């Protein structure tokens, strides 16, 4: 079982996204303890699209229960290629005075979920990010798929 919904590219739509994850988790029996990390990843990916992407078509989110967790797919049409798994490294050891707000989002995504995959379809100009979050211990996993279809 999976369910999907589409969202306009506006920051104030975040509340609708969180309502969707809440309802989908409940309907599919996904442990609620996983929801904060899933919401975090979705917020980072979605706000990046709102801030930086030139497309206007709605973004689609699909949620599917898997064993002991959830798989989430975020699809962005009218996209330029931007591999979220290839973010530049962030030095998290800097003292406060040298730290700058921003830049941490993509760094944190890879650490909060079990796996992240990025795919891009040149022909359809479509990006797709698939990530999994389970109750299992977190492996250091991030990868990319080529020749995706949306």
């Amino acid at each position, binding site marked *: 079982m999976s369910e999907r919904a589409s969202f306009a590219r506006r*920051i*104030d739509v*975040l*509340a609708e996204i*969180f309502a969707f994850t809440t309802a989908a988790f409940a309907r599919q029996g996904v442990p609620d303890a996983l929801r*904060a*990390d899933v*919401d*975090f990843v979705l*917020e*980072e990916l979605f*706000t990046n699209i709102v801030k930086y992407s030139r497309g206007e078509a709605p973004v689609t989110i699909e949620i599917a229960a898997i064993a002991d967790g959830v798989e989430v797919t975020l699809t962005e049409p009218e996209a330029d290629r931007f591999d979220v798994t290839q973010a530049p490294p962030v030095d*998290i*050891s*800097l*003292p*406060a*005075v040298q*730290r*700058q*707000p*921003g830049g*941490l*989002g993509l*760094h*944190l995504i890879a*650490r*909060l979920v079990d796996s992240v995959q990025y795919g891009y379809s040149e022909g359809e100009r479509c990006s797709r990010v698939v990530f999994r979050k389970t109750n299992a211990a977190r492996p250091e996993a991030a990868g990319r798929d080529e020749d995706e279809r949306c």
Partner: protein
Amino acid sequence: MLTMQGGGETPVVLAGRLDATQAVAAQAYLDRFQGVVTLDCGDLQYLSSAGLGVFLKTHKRLLGSGGRLRLTAVNRHLQDIFSYSGFDQILEIEPGR
């Protein structure tokens, strides 16, 4: 939804979700305080990187005048965010139950 109460002589009590839609309001609220500012995070259910930015900006401002930001009653989700971002090395953080 995020609510903020207190501050000054008492901790600032944050409740709800500090996401990108709430960051501007949270920053404006915290900008009112000086010295050692304690945030009671016992009812703060969710924090995004936008919220991290609010905490960092506030902490740096307070450091400049001899103060600092300290967080209490931090839940597991927030602890993970602070740990993976290195904020647990620059902020005084007291875990919750």
